[in-house]
């Protein structure tokens, strides 16, 4: 199975890079369409298992222990066959 993990700063934690990109998008003609920009990171991994529930459980442990800093970051896990 494949796990796609999206990690980004929590709501309420200032995302300076997102803000800077938003500002630049505004100045190059996207002011009316862009409401908010958040920049994070994506971890894609191949997992040695066939069961979606196990894949999600293991990926959650990885996020809690290492991949995300839950003081400032949220994560979202997408499991694909």
């Amino acid at each position: 199975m494949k796990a796609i993990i999206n990690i980004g700063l929590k709501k309420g934690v200032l995302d300076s890079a997102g803000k800077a990109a938003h500002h630049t998008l505004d100045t190059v003609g996207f002011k009316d369409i862009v409401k908010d920009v958040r920049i994070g990171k994506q971890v894609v991994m191949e997992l040695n298992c066939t069961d979606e529930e196990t894949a999600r459980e293991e990926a959650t442990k990885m996020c809690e222990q290492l991949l995300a800093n839950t003081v400032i970051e949220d994560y979202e896990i997408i499991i694909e066959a």
Partner: protein
Amino acid sequence: MKVTVLQFPGTNCEYDTKYAFEKLGAEVEILWHEETTLPADTDLVVAPGGFSYGDYLRSGALAKFAPIMDAVKEYAANGGKVLGICNGFQILTETGLLPGALKRNDNLHFISKHHHLKVINNDNAFLSELNVGEVVDIPVAHHDGNYFIDEAGLEELKANGQILLQYCDKDGVNQVLNGSVEQIAGVCNKEKNVFGLMPHPERAMETLLGCDDGVKMLQGFFK
């Protein structure tokens, strides 16, 4: 006084830190991260500055799983004194030995310059040689020094006297440097045996090199 300075791949302030503590009279040992025990006579463990593991994933995130860190956690749990400077501070927050987290600087720049700091609490082993409100001039050099803690955590820091230092101007007026919550530059744990700060006192040890305010800071550990 025996100081053990940790060395991870990518650490680059271990020799400055050794110099600083030796200047103050300590015996200093640099300890490679693959070791699993601390020297038995260690009085202070220092996690120095640098870019451990290339700052991959997040600054300090990979170092928390280095073989030596279990011994450091046990040492701290038994009341041993631990100091994290810059990347060392990031490692200690990632490890959970200190509250909060260090984010990318708000202006997204690497900031490298001298800056003034104000002492907020001195009833601890680190800053006991300084007075509350005293201003010191210490270099900063970091990309991820923007201290974050949620409101409940901040109230707890204040209630327990855990805020050590704030960024300020030469007159002690708070000054925004990197976006840190309340301009916090350093904190300690509730038990006051684990300390972390982004500025580099070990780079302020000689008037010949600009300033020796770091001497007053690090001397606290020798009492």
